[in-house]
Each structure stands twice: as structure tokens, then as C-alpha cells.
């Protein structure tokens, strides 16, 4: 999101403090020392992660500090993880498998490539999941593992985390 604040010492700290107060995690701060308007304000762009539902609280705290928020660009699904599934994917209701992830509300299947070599032969699929947080990704993968066990599918996870 893009913040606008007064060009005074201590203003940047005042803008950042509330973020940790609401449990947010600052990923990047881009501080351009060019006054954006005729008034004496500074533009600062902050990239951050916030737990679901904390944004109104943060905005309120920022306003109390005299910091105005110019623009909020919300990217909900920050984390991405690609896995491969092998087995009788269609016969075990692929849409239900996808739905079990989507139903969490905080992780979604965003891409699926399916190869079906022959009738009755196991098919292979590459599945991309996106999630709001790292913890939600872990949860989505746990769900997928449980579904795979129940449906007798093989799940191949990436070596490195999302």
C-alpha cells in the first residue's frame, strides 16, 4: 500500500509501528524523498503481510498517527506452491479434490495441467495452489495429503517451501 505522511522527523517510524502492533510483517519499504504535492508530505510505499481481517484496525491506528493512506493494492494470495499428483484422478472426483482446497477460503487451486495417457492407466496432474500466508499453504498441503491418502493418490511435493 502507498502511504502519504508529513515530511517531519519520526514520521516514518510512526507509520511503521502500528504494523507490528496489529501482527503485520513488513516485506519492503520504498521511501522516495520527493514531495508529491505542493503540501509538505512524503510518499512511502510499504509492502506488508497482514493476518486476515486486520486491515481496518491498521488503517485506524495509522490515521491516529496522522498518516494518510493514499492507495491500498491488496494481493490476497501471496504464496504459490506447485505439486504433482499421480493416480486415478478423474475416477476419484478431481473437482472434489480441488474443492477441498478452495473451501478453506485462504488457499485456492489456480492452475491444473492434466495428462491422461490411456483409459484405466493412472493420470498425472500438475496443480498450483496459492494462499494468503505460509501457514495457510502448509494447511492446504496437509489437506491435499489427507485427500491423497484417502483416494490412493501419490502427491509429489517440491523440495523447497512455497
Amino acid at each position, binding site marked *: 500500500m502507498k502511504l502519504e505522511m508529513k515530511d517531519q522527523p519520526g514520521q516514518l517510524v510512526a507509520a511503521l509501528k502500528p504494523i507490528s502492533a496489529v501482527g503485520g510483517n513488513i516485506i519492503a519499504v520504498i521511501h522516495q524523498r520527493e514531495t508529491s504535492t505542493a503540501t509538505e508530505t512524503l510518499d512511502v510505499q510499504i509492502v506488508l503481510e497482514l493476518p486476515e481481517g486486520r486491515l481496518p484496525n491498521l488503517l485506524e491506528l495509522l490515521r491516529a498517527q496522522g498518516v494518510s493512506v493514499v492507495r491500498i493494492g491488496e494481493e490476497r494470495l501471496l504464496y504459490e506452491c506447485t*505439486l*504433482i499428483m499421480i*493416480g486415478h484422478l478423474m475416477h476419484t472426483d478431481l473437482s472434489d479434490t480441488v474443492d477441498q482446497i478452495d473451501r478453506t477460503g485462504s488457499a485456492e487451486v489456480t492452475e491444473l495441467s492434466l*495428462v491422461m495417457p490411456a483409459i484405466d492407466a*493412472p493420470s498425472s496432474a500438475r496443480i498450483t495452489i496459492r494462499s494468503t500466508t505460509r501457514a495457510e499453504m502448509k494447511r492446504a498441503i496437509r489437506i491435499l495429503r489427507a485427500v491423497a491418502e484417502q483416494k490412493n493418490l*501419490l502427491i*509429489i511435493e*517440491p523440495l523447497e517451501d512455497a
Partner: protein
Amino acid sequence: MRIALLGFGSVGQGIARAILAKDLDIIVTGLADSRSGTIDAGGIDLLAALARKGDGGPCGNPGVSPADVVAKAEYDVLVEVTPTNVETAEPALGHIRAALQRHKHVVTSNKGPIALAYPELRDLAEANGVLLKYEATVCGAIPLIHAMQEGLAGNTISRLYGVFNGTCNYILTRMAAEGLTYEQALAEARELGYAEADPTYDVEGIDAGVKLVILANTILDMHTTLDDVERTGITLLTPDALQLAEDLDCTIRLIGEIIPGAGVLRVSPRIVPKVHPLVVEGTLNAVTVEADLAGDLTFIGKGAGSTETASAVIGDLLYIRDRHVQGS
């Protein structure tokens, strides 16, 4: 230094050939295979024993058992290189116990006794003032155990992961390179002698799992068994799955992983970027160790083979000789 050699298959013969070829100052005073044994305090003629074995015969006298060699031969170190039994570790476990009780050092390539009974054997060795070394049990020629025990002493290991089974790595390399099915690649591995007639131990991840247990129990201070390893093999992998990975500039490898802090021991096929250092070709092994002081280290080398495994055994023998064996 005098050794008694139990096991005269691929590894045992590799050790004998290395002793013959190099001036290692090692004399073999006892030798046994599954059918026979021989004891000679003056030193056994290894060339003749290799020739007998090469002709399909026993290495020694059918009237001499491995237990006789352990109990009666005059030696400083028992070298136990018989095939692994992951269920009971016998008969190797009994032979190792007997040697330690005779105040003899032991060097083994046998995963069974180390995976199943390391704490007991370590205590027994300590009580008898001798050493128990097992470098050859994990990743053949790669001196991984020595590196972790000696070179990385003082480091805390947060994660250890890699390719621990050359047979699986060969199969996956061939599936990715040629689009072979699992069955075709396995047949090829068998023809080349990389896979056993019954490949279960390799392809179901049991071999890799046992190696994780050894590393966890002997170096990472964990107390685990094979049952604690979450294990998935490679038998269900399809050429399509490898192609789907390839589309992302990735491939699939059977990865063994230990995360000591989280109690994770896991063997499973994983998607790995092709540029990753663990993506090694053919029967190679590769292991990455994440250490707090040293940072990440990756070891790559031959995980099996007669001469390669002999290298690890001889490294252990010379370690013992340089530190402990007097008058040799």
C-alpha cells in the same frame, strides 16, 4: 594392522583388492563368507582367496564358520561387510558384539546393526576401550559421517537432505532423459547390475530410510527406527509426471530428509529445480547439510560399488590404526 574380514562379496573383495594393490600395511588374519572361513595368523593369501571366489568356490574351509573367525582369529579390527538385514541385523549384530567383547575395534558397512542397535554397540565399544566405525553404511564413498562428526563438530545441523539411493536416482534419471516408464527404466537398471532381482528395498525407499535412521541416531542425537520414517517410493511415478516437472525446468528425485528440530524423517519423491545441486545423474548420491556455523554444504559422490565402498571401510581402518592400534 591385522584385520578379520567377514563377508567376501562385492565389498569384501573390493577391500581385498585395495589391500593387494596398495601399501596399506594391513594383514588379513581371518576371512569368512556365508559358506566358509579361514584363519591364518601369518596372513591369508588374498590373491588365492579372490581366485577361489572368482571360480565360484568358497573363500575358505567349509568347516570354519564366521563365528569361529570372530572368536578365534588374532586381529586388531573386525571388518564386517556382510549383506544388510534390516529386520534383525543378524547374524552381523552377534558377530560385532562378540568382537567388541574381545576388545576388538569394529568397522562395518552393514546398515542393520547400526540402524537397530547403535546405542548398545557404542556403549559396548566404549566399555571395552575400542572404536566402532561405520562410514560405509551411508552413501558409499562419500565421507559424510566423518565430515559431520569431525569437520562439522560444534555445528548444529538444522536440516539434512539429499539423494541417498543410487538405484532410484538411476531410474529417475532415465525416465526423465528418455521418457521411459518406471518398468522400462527398472529393467535397464537390472541389466546394468544397479538393481537387485527384488528391487523393493531400493525402490520403496527402505534403503534411504535406513540411512536416515543411521544419521539421525548416530550423529543428530535422535532416537528413531525405520517405522518413524515417513516413506514413499518411486514405483508409481509416470513419465507424464516427469514431463510435467520438466515443463517447469524441474525434475523429480527421491529425497531423504531429516529436520531434527521438527522430528521429521521422510523419504519421498520431490519436485526439484534442474539447476539444484542435488540433481545428480545416474547412480550418484548427493547430500546437503545445513549447519549453523558452516552454512550449507553439499557432498556428491558414488554411493555404492565395490571399490567405492571399500574406500570408506579403509578410511575407517586407517583412522583406527593412526589413533589406537599399537605396534602395527
